[in-house]
Each structure stands twice: as structure tokens, then as C-alpha cells.
């Protein structure tokens, strides 16, 4: 290999090589860190919700008339919904998981205002709750119809039973989550509440909260004026059932309005919109960046080929084959790119440390660095191939001509 001569030739014109290497290095630092951010967003979005998401939708009902009878409305709405063909089950609740709005409380293992509770997302449901969500009961039992109370907006009494998620059980009883079943814990500092069931997985209302998977269900219907129905349909029936439900509810009672009908898929999409957009923007950025860097390589390599036309011709005249010329430029680019990716690896880690400190992002996964190095080396080789081939097709006769 002619690494020696290539190196010496490069040293005579360092600037171009340094610029390319620097460009590759910064490109790599941006690329790897951007991919790392994308991975983090993707991990966040791909946490399973535990719900039968594709067959769920929600619709809000807001009473406004002075004589609006909310309790009767809810009872009749639920009866009508549950009787509707295509609907598996339906509940009335205070909020919808993943929707960004909801209610949170703290549960504590000992009573007392001075004790810090474990934060938990809370949903008011009835005995149809588990079936409507489609969550899997790991231990204990479901609520029964007689457990379900009615709660006014400014009420402060809590029922005596709750079903919690396994994540909540683990947070409260770190040694043995299963031991949570049957335990009495305290809500609102001092009110006892017994854990009568544990579900495998369910998500709360706020995807960005670290207590996202800590959820408790309480057997209560709410009389808050505004309410939301969560409806589970037979597989594949959701889209045909949704408009029927909207019409049914709107027509049944003129003292309220129904609004914000959304499928669970849409709620998820809205909730993670900034994450999924960020992934798209970063992907676009990376593609653009690689394109610019390779165009830069093409431009500089072409220039260097043009400048060395005579030199190439001389070498060809002295017996160098086309392949040797091609290899010369490919090797030159490889050396520059190698320098670039090595510097890039250092920059990548540096940038990552900076981002961890400033924005508390996660550390990059180790394999991203070698993968990015290989990728950029390959990009460099592909980019330089065109100019290198042009160089190799310089006829030996050029050497005999003056420019």
C-alpha cells in the first residue's frame, strides 16, 4: 500500500484534509447524540399501556342546564351504551389514561400528615372498569356493584377498597409486591383503604411523570358536572360504533353537550406528539447532515482531482494502473475519514456528557459509536468514489500536455 506517499502528499495540503475530518467528526457527534435522543423518545413511547388500546375510545359529557340530573343521566347512559351492539363494555370516569389530564393522590402505608405518600394516578370506575380497560387482574378480585359509591365534586370521603397496579404495589412494598394484596393503606393522610386487587399493568394520565405506571382504581361514580365515558368495542368495530355513540348520547339528553370524542389511538398520538415529532425532525436532520457532509467530500475531492490532473497523468504514464489511481484517492479519503471518526468519537462522548449535565438526557448506548464510525467511513468511501473514478480515467497523455 502507498500509505506513506499518500500521507506525505496530504501533509503538503493539510487544510482540506483537516476540514473534511472536522466535518465528519462534528457530523458524527450530532448524529450519535441525535440517535440517542431518538432512542430515548422511542423507549418512552413504546411502553405498553396495558389497555386494549385499539378498541377503546372516550367521549366527554358536560351538563349545563340548571335542572340537569347527572346521576340519572349517567345511569341511563351506561345502560344504553352497554346494551349497544358492538360495545363490549363501558364506564363513566373522571379522566382517560394517557390524556394529559387526570387526578393524582398519595398513598401511604402508615397514617399521618407528616408521612410522605407515594404519588399515584387515580381513576374512578365501577365494577366494569377492569373489563373496559382490558387490564389483566393478577391477584385479588374485581369490585362488585355494591362497592360503587357516588361522589360529589367537593366530597372528601374515600371508599374503603382500591385496585392498584403492580408498579404501585412495588413502589409501596418494594420487598414483595404481592404482599400488597389485602393490606390497608392510607389515602388523604389518614383515611384507610384496602387493596383488594392488583392489575398487571396500566398507565396513568401523564406520560412524562415518573409515576406514570402507578395507578389506583376506586369504585366510585363521579357527579362533577363534566364527565367522560370510556367505551370498549368488539375488535374492528370501533370506527363504526363511534359516530353511533355520539349521536345516541347527544340525542338522549338535551341538558348536556357531548364533546371531545377520541379514540385511544388518537389520544396516544396527541399525547406523544412532541416525542414523535422530535423523532421525525431528528431523522430529517441526520439525513440532511450526512447529505451535506458527503457533498462536501465530493466537492473537495473533485477539486483535488482537478488540481492533480497532470500529476495523475504522469503517474499513469509511468505505469500506474487505473486501479492504483482509484485506490490512491479511496485510501486518502479513508485516512481522512478515519481521523474524522476518531475525533468524532471523542466529540460524541464530550457532547453527550454536556447534554447529560445540562438536560439530564440518558447516556448513549456504547454500540452507537462504532456503528456510526463504520457508517461514516462507508459514506466517505461512497462519496469519494465518483471523483476517484474520474481521476482514474485521466488519460496518461495529459502528462505530455501543458494545462
Amino acid at each position, binding site marked *: 500500500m502507498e500509505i506513506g506517499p499518500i500521507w506525505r502528499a496530504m501533509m503538503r495540503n493539510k487544510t482540506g484534509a483537516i476540514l473534511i475530518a472536522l466535518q465528519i467528526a462534528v457530523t458524527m457527534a450530532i448524529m450519535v447524540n441525535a440517535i440517542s435522543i431518538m432512542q430515548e423518545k422511542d423507549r418512552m413511547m413504546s411502553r405498553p399501556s396495558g389497555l386494549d388500546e385499539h378498541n377503546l375510545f372516550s367521549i366527554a359529557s358536560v351538563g349545563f342546564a*340548571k335542572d340537569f340530573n347527572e346521576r340519572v343521566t349517567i345511569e341511563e347512559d351506561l345502560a344504553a351504551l352497554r346494551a349497544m351492539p358492538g360495545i363490549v363494555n363501558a364506564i363513566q370516569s373522571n379522566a382517560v389514561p394517557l390524556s394529559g389530564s387526570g387526578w393524582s393522590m398519595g398513598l401511604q402505608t402508615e397514617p399521618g400528615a407528616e408521612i410522605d405518600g407515594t404519588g399515584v394516578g387515580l381513576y374512578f370506575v365501577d365494577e366494569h372498569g377492569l373489563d373496559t380497560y382490558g387490564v389483566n387482574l393478577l391477584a385479588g378480585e374485581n369490585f362488585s356493584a355494591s362497592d360503587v359509591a357516588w361522589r360529589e365534586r367537593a366530597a372528601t370521603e374515600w371508599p374503603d377498597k382500591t385496585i392498584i397496579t403492580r408498579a404501585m404495589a412495588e413502589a409501596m412494598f418494594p420487598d414483595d409486591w404481592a404482599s400488597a394484596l389485602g393490606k390497608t393503606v392510607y389515602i388523604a393522610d389518614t383515611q384507610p383503604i384496602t387493596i383488594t386487587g392488583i392489575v398487571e399493568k396500566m398507565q396513568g394520565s401523564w406520560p412524562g411523570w415518573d409515576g406514570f405506571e402507578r395507578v389506583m382504581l376506586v369504585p366510585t361514580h363521579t357527579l362533577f358536572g363534566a364527565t367522560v365515558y370510556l367505551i370498549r368495542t368488539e375488535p374492528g368495530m370501533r370506527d363504526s360504533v363511534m359516530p353511533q355513540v355520539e349521536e345516541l348520547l347527544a340525542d338522549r339528553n338535551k341538558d348536556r353537550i357531548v364533546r371531545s370524542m377520541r379514540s385511544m389511538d388518537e389520544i396516544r398520538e396527541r399525547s406523544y406528539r412532541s416525542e414523535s415529532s422530535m423523532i421525525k425532525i431528528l431523522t430529517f436532520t441526520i439525513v440532511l447532515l450526512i447529505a451535506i457532509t458527503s457533498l462536501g467530500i465530493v466537492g473537495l475531492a473533485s477539486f483535488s482531482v482537478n488540481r492533480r490532473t497532470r500529476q495523475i497523468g504522469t503517474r499513469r504514464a509511468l505505469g500506474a494502473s487505473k486501479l492504483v489511481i482509484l485506490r490512491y484517492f479511496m485510501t486518502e479519503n479513508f485516512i481522512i475519514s478515519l481521523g474524522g471518526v476518531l475525533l468524532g468519537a471523542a466529540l460524541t462522548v464530550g457532547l453527550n456528557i454536556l447534554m447529560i449535565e445540562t*438536560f439530564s438526557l440518558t447516556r448513549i448506548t456504547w454500540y452507537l459509536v462504532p456503528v456510526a464510525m463504520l457508517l461514516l467511513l462507508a459514506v466517505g468511501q461512497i462519496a469519494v468514489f465518483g471523483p476517484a473514478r474520474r481521476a482514474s480515467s485521466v488519460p496518461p497523455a495529459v502528462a505530455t500536455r501543458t494545462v
Partner: protein
Amino acid sequence: MFSYYLKLGLLSIRRNPLLSALMIAAIAIGIGACMTIITVNYVMSSNPIPTKSEQLFHVQLDSWDPNQPEDDGNFEPPDQMTYIDAMALMKAQKAYRQVASNKSSLVLEPQGDDERPFSVTSRNTWADFFPMFDLRFVHGGGWDDASDRNLERVVVLSKEINERVFGGENSIGRRVRLSGMDYQVVGVLDEFHPVPKFFDVTNGAFSDPEEIYIPFNVAVEYELPRNGNTNCWKPVDGDGIEAFLNSECAWIQFWAELRDNSEKQEYMAFINAYAEQQKELGRFPRPLNNRLNDVMEWMEDQEVVEDDARVMLGLSILFLFVCLINTIGLLLAKFLGKSGDISLRRALGASRSSLFIQHMIESGLVGLAGGVLGLGLAWLGLRGIEMLFGDFVENMVSMDWVMVLTAIGLAIVSALLAGLYPTWRACSIAPAGQLKLQ
């Protein structure tokens, strides 16, 4: 001379169309990406009320939980206020102006039988809200203190709602039915879209302003639903609205207008004295920690500019940097490719400084072209962001003239910086060696 260099620059750009196009494209893409993100950050961190932002103060009282752990010894008092405290401060009237407010969702029933009721968001506030936050009216005006005191059911409509309900005509004196009760229209607002929505960042710094405004006391009296964030460190003691109002739940945004520093000092002393007095009554169990932040301080404190946006800003600046290195390389290639020309000009008597100016002008031209093109790309980028994020960013994706000038300026400065080294190299070419070869 300048016009001559300009001509030379244009000629030179045209002579190597591919190389020039690459350079312009690199700058344009860098500027486009950078300006897209800078615009979003600029709007997020812009001053929503520039004329008064230093006289408007968000008031925080530390009425919070004595057991609340402090992260690194610095406890941030609750961002909202309890009803007891808000009413006490309203009653004291110690600031030039003060308003407590919160947010509700109501149902508006239009008059016509065939029109369907729809929900509207309402800001429940006080008479001072309108002059304090500089709201302008198309018709009528805000209500007065007497309306606050006498629980008058009056309403101020946003321009959009007046359009929807009354077809945009002067609706002063007309009645609007809201959640089962009639309210009299006293004012119709002009456009009012502060970004960020500084007076209530707790419930979304970039959400739309409320559609109607009604007196806070009326909302409390008729127990209208609260639709903003409510935070309680202590369970409410007993059932019913009275118990809730007397609880330690924070759900009210409180702002005071203080015209100068001495007013601010006095007000600070006043709220501290109030907190001490409450301590004697057994409330405010934490050490004294009350805050007055003006609008921009409050925006910073609440980290209105999201981390994601700042990460993107950092990455986009690095991106521009890559584009610049690219441009340096290409300019270098280009200028050194012109060695012959340069030597000839030098030999014919052009001084180094005139060659320097000539090439800087050429770089500047590339920058200008890249900037203009980049501006177009930034516009496309902003449309892209709008498409991705939807209505949430509607207020964030418009460029004002500051941004346009910044884009062009940034492009030209970048190109000049990028051109510095290649120009210097080109100017230091020894003419003799080059001419010999020809």
C-alpha cells in the same frame, strides 16, 4: 470599486456553477435549519407584554407542606395561591393593581333554537385584569370594582366568541347564557393572544387565551367548575364548597402591578408581614419564602422554553457549524483554483488588500444568496413543524422581521467568517510561481 468587485464576484460565482451551488446550498440548509429552531426558541422566550413586563409581578406565598422535601435546599413555593390568601391580598389592595384569577370550562347556549350549545373556556377574574394586562376592546370595556363586589353577572367576550355568537356586531348590553345562567355583555375584546400566555403558565404556557371573562366572585358564588390545575398538600377538611375554599389547596394565579422598585419593596414587606400573621394563626408552617417575579423572571423560573427546544437549538447550531466547515472547504477549493487569476491581478498591480476585499465580497455574496434561500427553507421548516405538532405550536411558527433580518445577517456573517481563511490563503499566493507555470 465596490460595484466592480461585486461584478467580479458574480462572474466568479457563475464560472463554477456547481461549486457555487454547493456552497450556497450548504449555507442555505444550515441557515434554514438553524433559523427554524431559533424562531421556535425566540417565540417561546419572547416577552409577551414588553411595555409592562417589568411592572407586573407574579406573587407566590409559601403556604406549603412542612414535610415537603427540599431539593438541594431550595424549595420552590407553590406557583398558585389558596383561596384564603388570594382573597386576603385582594382585600388588602396594597398593590397599584392586583388580580386573582382561575380558569373554568362553561357551556354557552346560543339564543337561536337550532344552534347547539358549545363549551367555552372562561377566565374568572377581577376588574383590574383588563387595564393591568393591557387588553384592548372593540366594543365597551371591562367591568368595574362595583361589579366585583356586587356579584354582577357580567361578561367580556373575546373577538372570536362575539363573532360566533353575535356575528361580530356590537353586543354590549346583550345577554349570553352560560351554564344555565344569563350574563350581560359589557365588553368585546380586540385580538388578544399573548405568547407565552404569561398570566397562567401553570395551565399551559402556550395554550390559547380564554374565550370569555367573568367576575371571579361570581364563579365562586355559583360554584362554577374549576378547570385548571388544583394542588393540595393537605386533605380538605370536610365536604362542600366552604370547606374547599378554606382548604390549603392552591388553584389561583395571583398577579400584582407594582410601578417601581419602592412599590415592589413595600409589597414584598406586606406579603411577608401577611405570612408572619398567618403563622401566628397556625398556617404557613414553612420558613418565610415568598416571591415576587416579574414577567420575564417568572417565564424563566417556570422554564417556559422546553428542554427539547433547547436541545434542538444546540444541535442546530452545530449543524450550521458543519455547513460552515463545508463552505470553508469549498471556498478554499474555489479560491485556490483561481490562483492563476489572482496572480495575474497581483502582477498587474492589484494590492493584497484590494484582493482581500474582492474575495470577501464574493464570500458575502454567497452568504446573501444562501441567506435568502435559507429564509425560504426556514419558512418551509416552520410549516413542517406546524404540520408535525399541530395547533399546539400555531403561535410559535411565525417569523417577524427581527427573525428575517437575523437569518440574512447570520448567513452573511457566517459566509464572511467562512471566507476569511480561504481569502487569506488566496491573497498570500506568490504571483511569480503561478505565472511561470502558465
